């Protein structure tokens, strides 16, 4: 394993995160928004692994496991809510649910 400069890893994580953020902001379909959130979570996990490998400790990987667990729980609940939303509004447009406004 050749040593990889840590900046490059982190920059990769940042790029993936930015792409996920753009996806959340621009897409109107809920499924795509959830997918973009997954992208962002993955990017954050990547950053952790990179950091853990720099310090040569298992802590980064431990954090990634926790992030993974959380992502799994979040996806299941999120998709259940998506089903409810679809059942109610008959569309996956997230802008359909805008009644809670000031």
């Amino acid at each position, binding site marked *: 394993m050749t040593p990889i400069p840590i900046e490059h890893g982190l920059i990769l994580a940042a790029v993936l995160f930015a792409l996920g*953020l753009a996806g*959340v*902001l*621009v897409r*109107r379909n809920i499924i795509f*928004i959830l997918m973009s959130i997954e992208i962002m979570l993955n990017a954050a996990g990547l950053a952790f692994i990179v950091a853990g490998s720099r310090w040569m400790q298992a802590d980064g990987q431990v954090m990634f496991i926790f992030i993974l667990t959380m992502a799994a729980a979040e996806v299941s609940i999120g998709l259940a809510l998506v089903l409810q939303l679809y059942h109610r509004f008959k569309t996956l447009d*997230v*802008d359909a*649910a*805008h*009644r*809670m*406004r*000031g």
Partner: protein
Amino acid sequence: MIELLWLVPALPLAGFLILALAGSRLSRAGAAFVGVLSVGLSAVVAAAVGGRFILSPPEGGAFKQVLWTWIQTGNLTAEIALYLDPLSLVMMLVVTFVGFLILLFSVEYMAGEEGYSRFFCYMNLFVSSMLILLLSSNLLLLYLGWEGVGLCSYLLIGFWYKDAANGRAGRKAFIVTRIGDAAMILGLFLLFTNLGSLEIQELMGRARELWPVGSGLAVAAAALLLAGALGKSAQLPLQTWLPDAMAGPTPVSALIHAATMVTAGVYLIARTHVLFSLAPPVQHVVAVIGAVTLLYAAFAALVQFDIKRVLAYSTISQIGYMFLALGVGAWSAAIFHFMTHAFFKSLLFLGSGVATMAFHHERDMFKMGGLRRKLPGTFWSFLIGCASLSALPLVTAGFYSKDLILFQAWSLRPGARWLWAAGLAGAFLTSLYTFRMLFLTFCGTERQKSGAAPGLCMTIPLALLSVLSIVGGFVQLPPMLGNVAVFSDFLKTALPSVAESHGVRAEVVLMIASAVVSLVGVGVAYILYLRAPRYAEGWARNPLGAALRALWLAGWDFDWVYERVFVRPFVWIARVNREDFVDSFYDAIAQIHVSFNCLLSRTQTGYVRWYAMAIALGAIIIIGILVFL
């Protein structure tokens, strides 16, 4: 015994408190019992105290009872102190006794009304405030009583508050008297800052020492106090509230607006007579106002058709006589007339109450008539009251008091004989309108069906007041008719007596003149209203007569003038000022907040992606701060 003086105002006050706190829980009989008993007990105590005072007068001719210190700050010390001298004794006795009789009358008169206990509650507060006014030893406590009676007058005029017109009448009374009260408090300020005290006797003493006769300060103080008296006693120009105050129940009109509250002004001037003697211009103004008012009100009373308004204008006129007496320096004559007036005026009001009740609350005299046969007792008491008011010679109390005033006006002001002439003309008009009222109400044909006769609670006061209206005058008889000077001698320590400057012959001539005048008035009324009504109707149809009639009916159109000169500009200013720049400053503050709210509400769009963008933006800003700063 005389130390029980404090009970006299305290008993009605206790009655007020009991009725205010527990009145709704008491039965009607219970409320009436408490209300009448408190004033009755007060009258008994007043009689006892008075008796002790007369039999063994305290030294100095006055008794002062200090209850506690009210205010003590800087050089102002005001105590709750009662001062009993012959003047306040006479007034106290009249107020408690007449008040008791009127309350007894109203037990039956107000029996069908709702708010029964509220009525007695307010009446008790009124009697208590009036007694505080009369018995107070300093001007501040007097002002407290003054305001208290003003408040009760407002409350009782608007007693039937569900009708908005009654509320307006109450407010009018309050506002007009308030003008006088404002002047009076300015007078109090002036007296305090210049003489350093508010104790009446001290004030009078210091004024006599420090202020020369006719000095500016004395004139100013006296004028301000006079303004206060004018408001309360409904004299020109502050008299417009009294005819409208007849919107209240009849016992209220009898007690407050005939016998007691409206005489508070007379009492004030009598109490501070030293001040008025030190300001001769003001005293002359008092006499002039008295004379003009009595003529003004007599003309107005001549054309009224509401029986209570006749009596209201009559009250204004008679108080004009009292002011006339005060103005010429006949102090005890004014108080004498007050006493007899209290008797016969309240008698007349109570009698009119019986008449209106008999005609099912009809107050238009031209719709009454023929009550003489149905209610003979009421007729005779009303007749006695009318006779006393008209000052029919020799048998009535009113004759002696009015005649005394006219004689003093003649003799004490030789340069202003027109004052006497005005009083004499007023006497003619008085008997004219009084007997017009009697003939229309009680004699002639019955124009409406009348109801039942009054019961015991109403006849006893009528009877007692009738007796007093006859014998009440016998305490002061002129020299040729018995020379009884009990009254003026009694008041000598409080009010200076007048020097007799004209002989007996002048007095006899004057007395005969006034007697003739009043009898002629009766005769004219008889002819015009019983024998040949066509003359009166003819004059009413004549254009000049109709115009005069309309003018006098509206009280010489004072209301019209005041409305246009004072009320409308004031209301206009208030309306224009509603949106003044101070308001717009506060409005601007509120407006800024509202617009900020609108602005910030726009950020709550409800769209998920908008909120995500807001989070991203926040993160960017914070990271940016961390990274770049």
